[in-house]
Structures are given as C-alpha cells and as structure tokens.
C-alpha cells in the first residue's frame, strides 16, 4: 500500500482532551433552567394484563408537571424494528419486570417519588414463560401478540426462525469417523456501560418542536420514533448525541423509549425534562444480550477433516423482539464457524419469554455461537490428539473458498494468517509441549494447573442481508479555513470520530487538526443507519473518504486554476500544492482561489455496501459482502482446589485490514477481550421467574484491572479492497472468540470442557452451577440470610 501521512501512524483521539480534563459533558451533566426531573413507573410483575391506570392521584400533587401513558401517543405508542411489537409506554399488557407503564415529570426528586407512589396501576398477573426451551410448547403461556396458528412471523411465542442448508448433513454425519454432539448454553449478558441511560428534552419556545439530547446509538432512529409515536413533523424534532459513556450495542431500544418519553413530557409540560436511570433501573429495565441454548453436532474424518455440522439454537428474545431477529440471523450464519464442510444445517428459533428482553450487544449473535462451535471443534482436535491450531488450519476458509452458505469468498480471507500469527506470538507450540493435557483423574488435590487454548472467529461485516446498508457524511470548509466533518454514524467511545478525521485528512493531504467533527446531530448529519455491527469504519469511513475525495477534486480544480495548468499536473508536498513550474501554494491560498472561482466548498459522500442476497427459504446465499477474521489464544492458571481461574496471558491476531488509528484498534481489542473474559468467567445475569437477580455492580461482576492480563494484540493488515484505505473493522470480533479461547484453555488445564457460561467457581470446581451468587451489599447488610 502507498505510504500514508496519517493513516496508521500514531495519532491521538480527537476528543480525549476534554475527557481527561473532566469537561466532556454527558447527558447527566447537563442542567438547564426550569428543568424537570422525570422517571417511569415500571412493572414489578413479569407478565400481567393492565386492567386500569389511575394517574389522577399523581396529577393532583403540586409540582407534578406531566403524567403520560400510552394513550398520549399515536397508535398507543407502538414502535419497533424490524418487528413492531414494543410500546413507548406499555399498552394492555406488561411483559417483563421493568416494562415502563407511566412516565412522570416533576419539579424535584421528592415530588417525583410521591407522584410515582400515587399512581394506581391495576395489574392482573398472567402466567409467564421463563424457560426458552418451553416457549414453543403448545401449552406455553402466550407472550407474543399473534396466535400460534397465524401466518408469517411472529406467531405464538415464535418471533422468527432461520435456516441454513447445504447438502444432507445427516447422511454425511453417519459416515464420519468421529462426531461431537453436545449442548451448550450461554446466559444473558448485561452491557454494563459505566454511564447509565438518560435523556434531556427541551421544547422550543413558541412551537411544537423539541430538541432531545440522548446518548443513543442512532439519533436518526430516535428521531423517527419520536416523530412517529408523538405525531410530529420532520422539522419539529432534533436529536443530538452528547458524549456517550459506553454503549456496546445497548443504547438503542431502551434509549428510544427514554428519548420519546422525555420529549412527550417536555411538550406536555412546556419545560425541559431530564430522565436519568439509576444503575438498578438500568440493569432491570434495559435489554441484554440474548441467552441461547444450542445443540451442536459436528462430524469429522479421522484425519481431522470436518465433514458436517448440525446446529439447533433457541434464542431467548425476552418480552420484545428488538433487534434480536437480526442478531439471531447472524447467529445462524456464523453457527458453523469459519470452516469448510460437505454439508450443514442450521435451525434457529427465536422465542418470546418474560425474561427481560434481548437486543444488540457487541458480537451481535456471533458471540454465543462462536463459543459453541469453537468448543466442538476443539473437542474434535482433542479426541484425535491433534493440535487445536493445526485442526483449524486444516479446515478453515481460505481465499476463494465457498462457504457453507454457498458464498464464494474473495482474496481478503485471512484466517490462516491470523492463526499462524497468534500461534507465533503466543509461543503456542512450546507451551503446548510444556503443559500436559489435564486429566481429571490425575489432578492432585488443590493443584494449580496451567492451560492454553485457542479460538478462531469470522464475523460478517456490517448489516449483511438484514437491510439496506449505506452511510453518508458531509465535509465543508468554513470561512476560517477549518473544516467541519459530519457522519450519521456515531462514536460512543470506539473511536470513529478519530478514524473519520484521519481519513479526511489523508485524502485531502492536510493536517488532521484542521478538521473538526461535529457531534452527531440530526440537523447536520445524514442518516446512515444504526451504529452497530462494526460497520462504522468501513461504511462511515468510505462515505467520509468519498466526501473528502469530492472536496479534493474541487481544491485541485482551484489549484489548477491558480497555476493555469491541468489538474493532473498539480503535485502535493505536505499541505502545499505545487504547480508545474514548481511554485508552491499553501492550502489557504488554494482555498481562497476556490472561493474566488465561485466553487462550493462543501461536499457529501455516500457509500452503499456491495449487494448481498439471502434466501430465507433455501437457507443459502451471500449473507455478507465480506468477513473479518481473527484468532485468539488464552493462557490460564486454574486453581483446581477452589475453581478460580486466572487468565495469565492473552494473544490476539485480527484481520483489520489497514490499521487507521493504531491506539484505537488496540483499545478495541483490549476492551473486547476484557468483556469476553467477563462473559466467560464471571458475568451472570440470572432471571428467576422473570426477576433479574443482579441489579448493581455488587452482584453483576465485570472484570477489574486485576482480573485481566496484559494482552498482546496484533493485526493482519491484508488490505481490504472495499474499505477506506484498505481498512476492515475491529469493534466486535475482539470480543467474540474470547470466551471459547478461555474455556478451551481451562479444558487443557483440567480436562473438563465447560459447556455452560459463565465458567464460574462452581462450574469449574464441581461441574455445575448453584443458584444464588450473593452480593457485596446483601452480605454487608445481612439482607439475604444464607
């Protein structure tokens, strides 16, 4: 690749300064005159019919400025995508503990609490569904809205189902020398962003419009939901995303409810309204990563060649579908892993239950299935006494291979490189030789055992065949010759603001410090769909590059005018433009010239993802236009006396294509692996009859700095033709293979493969989970008697 000035060079995050000084303002830091506080009254039952809601008691309290229910909205506040089954405030039924019923705005906290207590909601309890395995039984209580016999989706408790089909796996499996058949389960995962949900709505004086500050992932989706459910016009609503204290996929649906609720409260009361979630409210009411029950059967020849794979998954979507239809589709596409098979069949059922509700979370469906397939493949290696990396190298996809979906891949396939690189940097061969395979019968009492494990990942880029996939950005030169850049895709910490700035700077050949990227704002940015699925670098990056290229052309035109030459004769040297007679002109001079020539110094760029197509009927097609590839190795030390697992070493090799922002990519890998470590060992969202057992950080444990080792992150920078400057992406795949790498390492150490996450103390020590984890607070205060 050509030498670059800024791409791939050390750079610092554009907004790091205000964050280290503490001046970056998050929505809870905003305070405006006459601002009201607000909160929702939420269901304390997992499933119930709403018989009546009496808000008069609340409305009569002095200082209460607005009390709203679903009746204050269009079509009872119904919304949702891709399946419209949610409400901004519950209508007719509440379907999970935490479902919002009423929203109230008041002068202060005391009045607000009194008002919430004064609302009378008459709920008739309904039987609930808490075990996703039972959701589709004929006698299961109905959580979904459509009868079981309905046409299409959803019907009964089935939200949607997916298949992937290639050949006849049953026949092929019969001829396999070795088959692994197992059930794997994962629990829900809580996003645990350190900033909880919140929003601030400010009504416009003398109009029916409103501005909403909301740390949601997609300001345009928030805006469209507000318009639709409140009944406003496009020009009546402006959504601005302030700094976001982490999202990881978790600030969509619940945030759209919050943004809409505060908007309506603001319009009713005529005053600014702020709503902030406590941590408990956030953990109870916000959506989670789905839980999955997976049955996997994988067959191979005795030389290790994988032959067939059969997968059946049940996805617990909880009370509402949110984006789970998309995550479950991604699960289906990735369930067999990045390997070649003669035949495969995937069946995924997405079901309604009353266990909270599930939605997007980094990994987006791949996290769950990667765990299962990487354990199964590893088990095959183990039984054949084959090295786990060798087995994967033997079977993994290579350039121009055809996948089990029937997709012919391009030259960018890089999983071999990732596996070989991670093998090298982790000193895999030496460690595997040094550390004997654990055998439960041979372990001495209280022995500390080392183990090393590997997992591979492929991760479809962007939305795939889930929907229209495009992004757009704008670039303009201001009067003072600084530049302003916008994108519809948002940076909630992952670094896309910096990435886009660097791309624009590189394309224009100017100092990145000249470029200022605006905060995501529906008034200034262009809708680019949701910021999910690790699509920001490619989609938004390409759109930025296009806008920058167009602006570059305009400036070259001006320079040519200045030098009285052809555009092709203009050279660049640093920021300067050099004419054929070697006379230099500065950037500012060229910009001036452009103005004099009457050229418009403002451009747009739009990039549409290459076409995908998927046949839902036949279960085949080209689901994603490209894939990210990666491989990770974890080293653990297991205390076989107590079940405690230390992750003592970690190595990752990811096919990021060109690295644009090195610090940023590393940070994403480290952060993703850390979330995966938590998912593997300690994060446990337990719903007991629909009641979440973990409501704060004392009960829901995420890794601290003492739980994570130093991680070695490396990149396979095979340039990706469709990405800006050859870049691919990173955000999600860093997380996805971490749990299986760690579980496979535990297997190496102990000889036991833990097929249910998290591999907490109990599962590692006694092979099963016990209910009741306990919390700091509960123990300190003697709230639960053992």
């Amino acid at each position, binding site marked *: 690749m050509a030498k670059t000035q800024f791409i791939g060079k050390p750079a610092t*995050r554009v907004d790091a300064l205000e964050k*280290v*000084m503490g001046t970056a303002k998050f929505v809870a830091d905003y305070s405006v005159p006459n601002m009201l506080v607000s909160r929702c009254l939420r269901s304390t039952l997992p499933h119930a019919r709403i018989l009546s809601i009496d808000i008069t008691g609340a409305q009569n309290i002095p200082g209460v400025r607005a009390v709203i229910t679903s009746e204050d909205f269009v079509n009872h506040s119904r919304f949702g995508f891709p399946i419209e089954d949610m409400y901004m405030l519950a209508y007719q039924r509440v379907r999970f503990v935490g479902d919002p019923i009423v929203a109230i705005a008041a002068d202060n906290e005391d009045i607000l609490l009194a008002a919430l207590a004064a609302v009378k909601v008459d709920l008739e309890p309904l039987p609930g569904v808490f075990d996703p395995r039972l959701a589709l039984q004929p006698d299961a209580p109905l959580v979904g809205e459509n009868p079981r016999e309905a046409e299409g989706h959803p019907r009964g408790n089935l939200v949607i189902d997916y298949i992937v089909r290639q050949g006849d796996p049953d026949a092929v499996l019969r001829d396999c020398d070795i088959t692994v058949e197992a059930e794997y389960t994962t629990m829900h995962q809580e996003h645990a962003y350190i900033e909880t949900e919140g929003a601030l709505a400010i009504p416009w004086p003398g109009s029916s419009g409103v501005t909403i500050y909301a740390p949601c992932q997609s300001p345009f989706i928030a805006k469209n939901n507000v318009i639709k459910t409140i009944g406003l016009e496009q020009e009546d609503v402006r959504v601005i995303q302030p700094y*976001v204290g982490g999202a990881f996929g978790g600030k969509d649906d619940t945030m759209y409810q919050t943004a809409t609720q505060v908007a309506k409260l603001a319009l009713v009361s005529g005053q600014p309204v702020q709503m902030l979630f406590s941590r408990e409210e956030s953990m109870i009411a916000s959506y989670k990563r789905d839980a999955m029950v997976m049955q996997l059967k994988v067959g191979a020849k005795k030389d290790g060649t994988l032959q067939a794979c059969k997968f059946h998954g049940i996805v617990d979507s909880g009370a509402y579908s949110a984006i789970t239809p998309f995550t479950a589709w991604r699960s289906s596409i990735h369930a067999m892993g990045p390997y070649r098979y003669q035949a495969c069949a995937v069946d995924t059922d997405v079901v309604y239950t009353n266990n909270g509700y599930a939605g997007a979370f980094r990994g987006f469906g791949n996290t769950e299935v990667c765990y299962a397939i990487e354990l199964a493949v590893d088990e095959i290696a183990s039984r054949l006494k084959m090295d786990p990396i060798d087995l994967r190298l033997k079977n993994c996809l290579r350039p121009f291979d055809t996948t089990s979906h029937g997709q012919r891949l391009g030259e960018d396939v890089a999983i071999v490189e990732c596996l070989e690189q991670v093998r090298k940097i982790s000193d895999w061969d030496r460690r595997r030789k040094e550390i004997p395979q654990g055998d439960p019968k041979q372990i001495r009492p209280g022995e500390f055992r080392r183990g090393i494990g590997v997992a591979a990942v492929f991760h479809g880029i962007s939305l795939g065949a889930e929907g229209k996939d495009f992004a757009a950005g704008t670039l303009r030169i201001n009067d003072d010759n600084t530049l302003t850049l916008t994108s519809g895709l948002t940076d909630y*910490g992952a670094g896309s603001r910096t990435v886009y700035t660097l791309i624009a700077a590189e394309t224009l050949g100017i100092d990145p410090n000249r470029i200022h990227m605006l905060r995501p704002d529906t008034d200034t940015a262009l809708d680019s769909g949701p910021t999910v699925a690790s699509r920001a670098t490619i989609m938004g990056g390409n759109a930025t590059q296009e806008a920058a290229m167009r602006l570059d052309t305009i400036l070259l035109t001006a320079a040519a005018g200045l030098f009285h030459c052809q555009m092709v004769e203009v050279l660049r040297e640093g920021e300067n433009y050099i004419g054929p007679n070697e006379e230099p002109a500065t950037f500012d001079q060229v910009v001036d010239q452009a103005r004099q020539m009457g050229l418009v110094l403002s451009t747009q760029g739009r990039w549409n993802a290459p076409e995908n197509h998927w046949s839902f009927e036949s279960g085949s097609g080209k689901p994603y236009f490209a894939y990210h590839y990666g491989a990770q190795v974890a080293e653990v030390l297991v205390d076989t006396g107590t079940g405690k697992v230390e992750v003592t070493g970690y190595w990752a090799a990811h096919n990021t294509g060109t690295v644009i922002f090195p610090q940023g990519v590393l940070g994403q890998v*480290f952060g993703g692996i*850390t979330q995966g470590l938590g998912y593997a060992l300690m994060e446990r969202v337990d719903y007991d009859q629909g009641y979440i057992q973990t409501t704060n950080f*004392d009960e829901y444990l995420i890794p601290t700095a003492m739980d994570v080792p130093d991680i070695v992150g490396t990149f396979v920078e095979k340039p990706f033709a469709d990405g800006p400057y050859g870049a691919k992406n990173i955000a999600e795949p860093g997380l996805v293979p971490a749990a299986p790498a760690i579980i496979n390492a535990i297997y190496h150490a102990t000889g036991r493969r833990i097929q249910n996450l998290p591999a907490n103390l109990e599962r590692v020590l006694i092979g099963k989970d016990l209910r009741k984890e306990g919390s700091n607070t509960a123990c300190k205060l003697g709230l639960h008697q053992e």
Partner: protein
Amino acid sequence: MKFTLLVNGIKMNTEAPADTSLLYLLRDYLHLTGTKEGCNIGECGACSVLLDGKLVNSCLILAAQANGREVKTIEGVHALENDGPNDLQQAFIDYGAVQCGFCIPGMVLAGESLLNSNPNPNRTEIRAAIAGNLCRCTGYQQIVDAIQATAVKRQEKNSRG
C-alpha cells in the same frame, strides 16, 4: 445544613440537606460535574475524589463528613502553569487510555493518588491501585501504560533534580 469545603484549593460554601452525599453536593450544588455517578453504591469508582488526599468513593461519603476538609476533583487536576492537562492527563491522551471517557476522571484521580504514595509502581501495583475503578471500554491496559509512563517520567525528572 451549611457546608464549607475546600474544593480544588478554593473555599466553597453551600447549603444542602444533611443527608446529601459528597457526590451530589459536588455535582448538583457546586456544579462540578466532572465527578460521575456510575452505581451509587461504591462499586464502580466513577465518583472517586481525593478527601484530605485519600482516594474515596464520594457516593458513599456524606458531604457532612467532608465539611471543613479538602476535596480534590478532576477539575482540580491540571498542569501547574495553566489549565491544560498535567503530565498524567497528557499520558492518558498519548497512550490511548481514553475511549468513552466516563470512567476517566476517577481513573486520573486514582492514578494521581497512586503516584503520590508510590512513585515507582510496577504494573501489578498499578492494576491494584485502579482495581476500584471499573472501565468497560479499554480493558485497562493502556491506562496502566499511561500511569506507568508518567511514573517513569516523574522519576527521571526528579533524579535530574
């Protein structure tokens, strides 16, 4: 109840209910919003401040306990000569330690607290010093790098005297 606290070297007076936590006094009454609320039960460290030089969770300290005492918040951490970043803050920027930024004020204070008492910490000690500050974005490593680099630079500066 009346409160007088020395916050970042400045005497601040305000009035608030006696049961107000130090966190809420700082944020809602003194309008210093750099200190964040993440959990309100002393588990996440986003609310960390220095009270008489000691790192504490301000969500679990009554403002009344801090009455008449010295509090340092992120607003009080900056270069000596100006309002820009000090060496630790600059290191956070340079080493990629910042992603969403929400945990960062607490992390910076935890870093400062460590370096005040242990000018030559190894990586294990650094991790222990920030173990009470949860971060969900970074995986901690670049934060450890930033604190370590600052310690080394400060040592070099001191030995040059």
